[in-house]
């Protein structure tokens, strides 16, 4: 019996057949002690004009001889269009652009201190998809499949196939030892007819041994095409659950958004309780999941966008790590920046226009029937997933301002718990202590001193929510416009 290779179906790619815990692009978010499959595929998209560079991360952890993957590509790639790059670039971009937790310390109301803040950054998390295995040993002779090119690049053997129809391609793949899901055919056909080629990858064991790497490196391809898209449909062929995909997009002009799905911002700039610090990865995973469900499961989320042009001095604020350098951008596939000598935290060692967008998609067959199509907009607005912790003053406060300060902390903490419950859906019962501590402190300080408290008007609380505020204001404005309008109409009549 011939040995069969297993093809991994990933985001971009294709039929995947193995049940072991792996996905093709991905990264662990939480620590090893978590039971969550916190994996997501990651892709770097670089585009200027019609030139595209796509880098796909690879965190396959099984036996490398079982690794295989198929990606639809719009053109036949030349040998020089395919590269293998180091995996570090994904970690770098993830750290740079990931959702971040920011902390602020209260000023002691009894003394005057300078306010300062520190920054902590955690990666975000997502769930992993499971992939099924499909066995089929059918053999058919007539395929209509042409091997357009064949290369060995790094530790990979690469084939570029073109096909006339899906059943031929399916058969060819099976004949050559690739197992593919039986329902892949309906998805292959549209790609073949759209004149897509198939980029088929497996590991060259000798080269892999020689490479000295104990993991499979990301593959980077570049091609000319007017299609700015990611084919996600093949990756769904056999996945039961929604899959996570993180996209880092680099363009010259501005923010990248999907044209056939709604792109919306992940909730950001929220005040959350200080205890979330120990569990930030989980917090973000749950907050993402809630936002995903609230938005109908068919929305693409913006997690980060920033102008990285050499002319923009502030390349992140706060910075979780140093902004990408010229060499790192080169590795990510950015091909238009030019090196220069200046070096420093904000000053880039490159020249050129550059904008980064980080998108997070959780997709499944039902809610994402179409591939992802993108457009680059001139929107240069900065955005980041940012969550804020406020640390109260430690120690005993002995002054008249203490009670009003404790009252402020108490109110703030109640709001933080409400916010946390809304963002993540966590049950707040077990966090009663978080406010109780300050309720007690307040009581004690009131006993110590004269009754002295700051009053809070409920309306202020309502207006703290900028969305409610904007809705109320815009409704008022609309009302005003309508009355002015009808007033003028009546006068004219």
């Amino acid at each position: 019996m011939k040995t069969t290779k297993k093809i991994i179906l990933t985001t971009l790619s294709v039929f995947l057949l193995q049940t072991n815990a792996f996905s093709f692009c991905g990264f662990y978010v939480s620590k090893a002690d978590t039971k969550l499959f916190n994996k997501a595929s990651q892709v770097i998209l670089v585009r200027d004009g019609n030139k595209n560079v796509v880098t796909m991360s690879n965190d396959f952890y099984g036996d490398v001889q079982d690794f295989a993957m198929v990606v639809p590509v719009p053109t036949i790639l030349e040998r020089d269009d395919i590269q293998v790059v180091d995996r570090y670039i994904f970690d770098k971009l993830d750290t740079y652009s990931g959702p971040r937790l920011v902390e602020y310390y209260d000023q002691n109301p009894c003394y005057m201190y300078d306010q300062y803040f520190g920054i902590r950054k955690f990666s975000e998390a997502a769930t992993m998809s499971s992939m099924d295995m499909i066995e089929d040993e059918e053999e058919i002779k007539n395929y209509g499949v042409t091997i357009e090119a064949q290369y060995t690049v790094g530790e990979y053997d690469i084939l570029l196939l073109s096909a006339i129809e899906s059943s031929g391609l399916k058969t060819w793949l099976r004949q050559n030892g690739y197992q593919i899901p039986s329902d892949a055919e309906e998805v292959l056909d549209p790609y073949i007819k759209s004149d897509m080629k198939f980029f088929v990858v497996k590991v060259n064991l000798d080269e892999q041994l020689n490479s000295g790497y104990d993991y499979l490196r990301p593959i980077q391809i570049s091609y000319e095409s007017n299609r700015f898209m990611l084919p996600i449909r093949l990756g769904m062929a056999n996945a039961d659950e929604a899959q996570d995909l993180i996209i880092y997009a680099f363009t010259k002009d501005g923010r990248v958004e999907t044209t056939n799905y709604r792109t919306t911002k992940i909730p950001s700039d929220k005040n959350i309780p200080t205890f979330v610090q120990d569990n930030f990865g989980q917090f973000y995973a749950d907050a993402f999941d809630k936002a995903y469900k609230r938005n109908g499961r068919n929305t693409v989320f913006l997690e980060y966008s920033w102008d990285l042009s050499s002319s923009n001095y502030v390349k992140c604020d706060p910075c979780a790590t140093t902004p990408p350098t010229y060499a790192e951008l080169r590795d990510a596939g950015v091909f238009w920046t030019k090196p220069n000598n200046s070096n420093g935290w904000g000053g880039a060692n490159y020249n050129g226009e550059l904008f980064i967008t980080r998108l997070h998609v959780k997709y499944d067959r039902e809610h994402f029937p179409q591939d992802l199509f993108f457009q680059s907009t001139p929107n240069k607005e900065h955005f980041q997933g940012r969550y804020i912790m406020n640390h109260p003053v430690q120690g005993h406060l002995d002054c008249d301002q203490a009670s009003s300060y404790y009252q402020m902390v108490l109110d703030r903490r109640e709001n933080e718990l409400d916010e946390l419950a809304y963002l993540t859906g966590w049950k707040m019962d077990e966090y009663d202590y978080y406010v109780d501590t300050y309720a007690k402190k307040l009581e004690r300080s009131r006993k110590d001193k004269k009754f002295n408290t700051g009053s809070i008007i409920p309306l202020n609380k309502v207006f703290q929510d900028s969305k409610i505020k904007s809705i109320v204001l815009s409704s008022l404005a609309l009302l005003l416009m309508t009355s002015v309008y009808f007033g003028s109409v009546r006068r004219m009549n």
Partner: protein
Amino acid sequence: MASLLQSQKSMPTSKLKFPLNLMHFFNDARHFQIVYLGSFVLFGLVFLSWHEDWFKFILFAVTALVIQYFGQAMTQPKRGAWKSALITSLGLCLLCKTNTYETAILAAVFAIGSKFVLRYNGKHIFNPVNMGIIASMYLTNDAWISPGQWGSHIVLIFLLGALGFLVLRKVDRLDASLTFLLVFGGLQFVRSVLYLGWSIDVYLHQMASGTLLLFTFFMITDPMTTPNHRTARIIWVSLISITSFALSNYMYVYAAPILVLFFASPLTPVLDTIWQSEKFDWKFSKSFVELKK
């Protein structure tokens, strides 16, 4: 006592009067359009996170009304043209995205300004919203269209279509929308489903774009910038549909219909010369109440 009796008597009358007033209000199709577009702006503000843009929306409206005022001062005043300016600004709120206030103002200036400057034979040449979008996109490189902004809320799409249908009945431009849906939708169906072999939900997702439907029911049916004669209109819309289909499927231009409409607009006066028909007048738009008389 007498006054109490009187007020009791008058109550049923006032109840009856309300729907009649409403009918009277909607006699002018522009009122209907204002309600129609305004409700989508509200939907976006509440459900699609457009609340961040509220000040830009005000700018669109204020600028449009101001330019309309000056435009009218310099030309012949027309009754109720205010309504058109408001409709234009609502259209800009729904379709034109920008991050700066200057661009928002510029879009509204071009939209309304073009109505007074670019005219032929008593009609303006370009659809004002279309003009505002295209001018701000290409003059400033700071405006864009977000075809995906609506998501694919089926209920919303349905309402958008159904309400659009009612507006069109009033302005008698249903043929334009139907032609576009038939030609563009038909070509898309043939390519996506019959030729490429995508399943039907892929096709529905392609067509269920709020921007596309807004174009179909609002922009391409503007009575002032479409050919007056039905035959001319159908030819004109078919041309736009075919070009848009080709551009979006082969060149991957996502805002294709809006672009194509811009370049097809100068054809309207030509078609109007070949097929002559009466120019549309808002005052004579069909009335719901008339039918009941």
